[in-house]
């Protein structure tokens, strides 16, 4: 039986099938952005051919498909979501647009039009009702006002309704009654109540998350519906799982219900792949570093567990659901370098994109990009072919860097070296964001470099941060699809419970977590009959603080009679790691209890090792500028032999990436053909 992972990117759809022996088969086919499910089915046909099967035969032998999608992300970025109506507590319809009074963009830019909210004010309607902070009802729900609001939404042709009432984190009764009424009167509409997606205190976070869910929900539902239909037509009868932003997978129905949780579905695959890699390699501490053409995703895997964040935003929208702590930098191989009027050199955030692309692509681009700098420095071979059979135009790259250099009094070479230093510095800053700024020392981690542009920058970035080790997968492009197959099914439950952790009784704490565990287990068991693991954490703060820190609680002793103290101690310790101090005599408030039910899927079989072969020989020498010009060896990535060791400086060329091993570095080839570089 096969398991198939499918990662739909902007340009290509990557697929991987893994059989019982762990043998993986790869396929790549063009994405079809208008309806990605078409590209997926075409990709499945390509994959079947690679297996020597026809598609329905392959699907008949497939036990599970896991899929990462950017449908929700794109709907947000391109503002192509549903027409949403929002029901709020009367008198509070502007919470969404007020953003707590914060102007999100540059503080000093007072010539800036405000962003359009996802729901315009005329579709944000108040319902007469009010619940107090303690959950008691101040004003019962006025059904006439609810019906008037629904009348307006129907008249306006709204297809998706978000409901967010004040203090619904404490009592969901009014939201539930309203949702029922909306569902009854608007049968085709997609309905999201805040208490169903994010039952937590803080109304802006909640309304924003709810509205995002309502906005992308119908798009995600439509797409996944079409995909499920096409898979059924193609004779697939097994389950379809969707990658979620928190790095777990969920059945299609859950992904449709909690559509806002799929906005990081795409990059989550890369992290999932990294976690799997961490297990396979026996390197539990990894920093996944995915450097592409226009952007770079950086995250952190510690003891094989990815970092989670609860304060993510995408395309200016706040989504408060737990998601992988992925930092996305607007810089990559295609980033444009420019000199500002003050004579300071910047790289990005503008990108040459695919068209016109870097100057060296010869498609009319004239501005110097990171890729052009790499050509000028000899790191990319102008005589070689890029993917798609394109030849690089070295003269164009030289000219672009020459122009850039003249603006700051440097020649093309020095300018190119400068562009490299700046981009590497920005990448290092991104890694500091997920490590140092989370209280974690990156030197105890290995950098896992993937994405087309990562290979030429990873060792330099690692060196800047004193990271001793860089690992480069052999087939980085399908790392995501492959990682999805190794992901667990994950259901998250959260409950706001504001109380002093130190004075909470051991029984009280155990009871809250036990109830939540039962709830999460129940939901998971409805779709999954394998073994279930439980993860517990809590968001906590000192009494008067307002931002909580998420503190994992799995490692504490749940049988201690002083459970409250143990929980508080875990918080003090984390606070000190993050902010240089703790205040151990002050009260610790537990705001949100979190429980994740994790369905353990059968382990992905280990990839077979490469057979023994003769060490690969350099295919040529290339003249490269590494502080000075020198001739260095170029080796073919695909022909490397397990155990082979390569002393830097050297370039290792693969079909989709080129890796620079610098002087003093040593690359060793692992059993599965990956590179393990010791940064000297």
């Amino acid at each position, binding site marked *: 039986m096969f398991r198939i992972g499918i990662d739909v990117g902007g340009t290509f759809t990557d697929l991987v099938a893994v059989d019982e022996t762990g043998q993986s088969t790869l396929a790549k086919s063009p994405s079809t952005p208008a309806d990605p499910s078409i590209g997926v089915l075409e990709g499945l046909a390509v994959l079947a051919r690679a297996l020597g099967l026809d598609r329905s035969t392959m699907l008949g032998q497939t036990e599970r498909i896991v899929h990462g999608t950017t449908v929700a992300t794109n709907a947000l970025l391109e503002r192509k979501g549903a027409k949403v109506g929002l029901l709020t507590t009367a*008198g*509070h319809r*502007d*919470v969404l*647009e*007020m953003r*707590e*009074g*914060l*102007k999100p963009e*540059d*503080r*000093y*830019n*007072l*010539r*800036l*039009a*405000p962003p359009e909210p996802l729901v315009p*004010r*005329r579709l944000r309607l108040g319902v007469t009702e*009010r619940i*107090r*902070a303690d959950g008691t009802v*101040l004003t019962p729900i006025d059904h006439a006002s609810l019906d008037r609001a629904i009348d307006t939404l129907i008249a306006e042709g709204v297809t998706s309704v978000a409901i967010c009432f*004040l203090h619904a*984190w404490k009592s969901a009764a009014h939201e539930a009654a309203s949702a029922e009424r909306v569902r009854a009167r608007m049968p085709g509409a997609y309905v999201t109540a805040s208490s169903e997606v994010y039952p937590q*205190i*803080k*109304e802006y976070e909640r309304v924003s998350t709810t509205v995002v869910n309502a906005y992308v929900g119908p798009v995600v539902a439509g797409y996944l519906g079409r995909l499920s239909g096409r898979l059924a037509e193609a004779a697939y009868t097994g389950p379809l799982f969707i990658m979620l932003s928190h790095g777990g997978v969920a059945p299609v129905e859950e992904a449709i219900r909690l559509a806002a949780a799929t906005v990081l579905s795409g990059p989550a695959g890369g992290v999932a792949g990294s976690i799997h890699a961490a297990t396979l390699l026996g390197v539990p501490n990894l920093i996944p570093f995915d450097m592409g053409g226009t952007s770079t995703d950086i995250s952190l895997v510690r003891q094989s567990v990815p970092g989670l964040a609860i304060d993510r935003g995408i395309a200016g929208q706040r989504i408060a659901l737990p998601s992988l702590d992925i930092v996305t930098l607007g810089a990559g191989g295609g980033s444009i370098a420019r000199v*500002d*009027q*003050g*004579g*300071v*050199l*910047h790289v990005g955030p503008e990108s040459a994109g695919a068209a016109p692309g870097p100057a060296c692509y010869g498609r009319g681009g004239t501005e110097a990009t990171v890729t052009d700098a790499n050509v000028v420095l000899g790191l990319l071979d102008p005589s070689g072919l890029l993917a798609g059979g394109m030849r690089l135009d070295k003269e164009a790259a030289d000219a672009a860097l020459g122009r850039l250099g003249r603006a700051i009094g440097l020649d093309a070479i020095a300018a190119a*070296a*400068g562009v490299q*230093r*700046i981009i590497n*510095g*920005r990448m290092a*800053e991104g890694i*500091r964001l997920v490590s140092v*700024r989370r209280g974690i020392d990156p030197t105890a981690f290995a950098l896992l470099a993937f994405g087309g542009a990562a290979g030429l920058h990873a060792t330099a970035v690692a060196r800047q941060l004193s990271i001793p080790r860089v690992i480069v997968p052999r087939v980085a492009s399908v790392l995501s699809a492959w990682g999805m197959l190794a992901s667990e099914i994950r259901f998250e439950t959260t409950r706001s419970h*504001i109380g002093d952790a130190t004075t909470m009784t051991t029984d009280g704490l155990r009871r809250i977590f036990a109830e939540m565990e039962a709830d999460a287990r129940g939901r998971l068991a409805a779709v999954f009959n394998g073994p279930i693991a439980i993860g517990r954490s809590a968001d906590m703060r*000192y009494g*008067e*603080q*307002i*931002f909580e*820190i998420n503190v994992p609680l799995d490692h504490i002793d749940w049988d201690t009679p002083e459970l409250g103290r143990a929980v508080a101690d875990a918080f003090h310790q984390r*606070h000190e790691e*993050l*902010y*240089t*101090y703790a*205040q151990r005599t*002050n009260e610790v408030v537990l705001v949100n209890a979190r429980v994740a039910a994790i369905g353990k899927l059968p382990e992905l079989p280990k990839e077979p090792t490469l057979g023994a072969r003769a060490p690969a020989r350099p295919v040529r020498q290339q003249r490269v500028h590494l502080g000075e010009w020198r001739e260095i060896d170029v080796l073919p990535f695909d022909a490397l032999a397990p155990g082979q060791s390569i002393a830097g400086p050297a370039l290792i060329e693969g079909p989709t990436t080129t890796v620079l091993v610098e002087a003093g570095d040593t690359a060793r080839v692992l059993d599965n053909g990956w590179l393990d570089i010791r940064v000297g």
Partner: protein
Amino acid sequence: MQDQPTTPPSPSRQDASQSVDPITVAVVQHRLHAIVEEMGEAMLRTAYSQILNSSRDFSTGICDGGGRLIAQAEHVPVHVGALPYAARSIAEAFAGDIHPGDVFLLNDPYFGGNHLPDVTVFVPVFADGTLAFWSINRAHMSDIGGSTHGAYNPAATEIYQEGLRIPPLRITDRGAPREDLIRMIATNVRHSRDFRGDLAAMIGSAKLCEKRLLALIDELGTARLGPAIEAMLNGAERRARAIVEAWPDGTYFGEAWLDDDGRGRNDVAIRAKVTVSGSDLEIDLTQSDAEAKSFVNSSHANMQSACAMAFAYLIDHDIPKNDGSFRPLKVKARPGTIVWANDGLPVTMCTSHCSNEIVEAIVVALSAACPDRAMGGWGRRFRIAIKGEDPRTQRPFIWHLFQARPGGGGSSAGDGYNSVGEWHSAGGIKFGSIEVAEARFPFLFLHHEFRPDSAGDGMFRGGTGGELEMVVETAVPALGNTAGDGIRHGARGMLGGGDGKPHHYILRRAATGEEIVLGTKMVGVAIEPGDRLLIHSGGGGGWGDPAQRTAEARQRDVDNGLVGPTPAPSPKI
């Protein structure tokens, strides 16, 4: 009184034309920015008081050993231009006696503070045994002692009634906290536990910055870092000068008014005579009205900061705000005027008023020189601080009103932001969650939305103000102080745009239904259990001729209930 140029001479600059690697300059600029941002984030997440953790009323920055501003995070604009004055005060007070591990404190507006509640922490950072940087965090404390809670004391006639004055003070000596001094300060403020929590957060973030700077010094060495910083400052200066250069030479006038000084004097004028000459800009505030016997005076550092803020708003937003970008700017002012009070006078209101009027007068003046850069006026601040007891916990509380923000100004780029705040914070201060506020304070927020028909009309209208109705659910009477301005003068319309509507706040008695219109400078207003506050904040000023506003834009405002269907009255020209 004679005119007196007050911009301090910049300490001698190294010649930046010496061999500086332009790449290192860029690396250093990005890194310093990342450091001050990280510092701000740590502060936000660890502070105790609502005004800091929820409302973000603090700023972080780095000065060099000579007190020049090197980098600052984008928090509260009015703090930042004042930081160099404070850094120099500390350096002067402790010359020759500054050591690694020291921490200094200051709040006195006559030593480079903005006003007393803004307490500033300084951590010196050493390179090769020499003082290289100051890591600085300026934060608005919830209370600073004095005769009223929350520092704003409209009745004050001298600074001593406003709170504790902290001149340059060493609170940690080579790593050893001077607990006696800290206790002395904490004892003199209300809610000393919060004060200590906030101070710990400030010091924590400043130490974090020190740690990062030491790593940077270690990485690059002072021989490379010093020249790179000079080149970075010079680059910012070049960019700022290129913009001023494009404005027509000449002298421009602008005026803005405070409603009153709280002592019976109305329409206190701030007058800006702004001269553009090549790439130099001189702001002359000497003709502003005389100082007041009330807290609307500005301190010197705060006045400098307001001028820097106006300049920063008019140049390109992405020019780094540092010593270099402010070099084209010269400020002239006179002690004894409303913008620069003599020592001993109260100044607590000055970070909003008269800061906002200083900014507005400068923008009005330069709207003739750079119309596309000048923006409609942003709202004025009108705050209420309530002191009472929470019947649910019997604990005392102090609460500051941050909800129902006034509108931002329209600009050549489009309409203003609705309900986003005042000139001096520019959308950098949050009002926080109403759910959290109701859980923590005995208040019920019945209504909190945009205020229709409050925005100044224009080709691009101002943002609307906000409206708030809240019930004070105490069991025993609470006390309210107001502090602010702008119930007579609304935010200024620019280039033909209309003014925003002024503020209008009402206290409605639960017992009698009586409605009391609140003034902006009231002390000890008794708030009975069940009384309601009905708050209508001012709209932002419009930009450009209202006749140029598109029909679609007008219809959208009507559909969204932001503007009534009747056309707004024609604006003054």
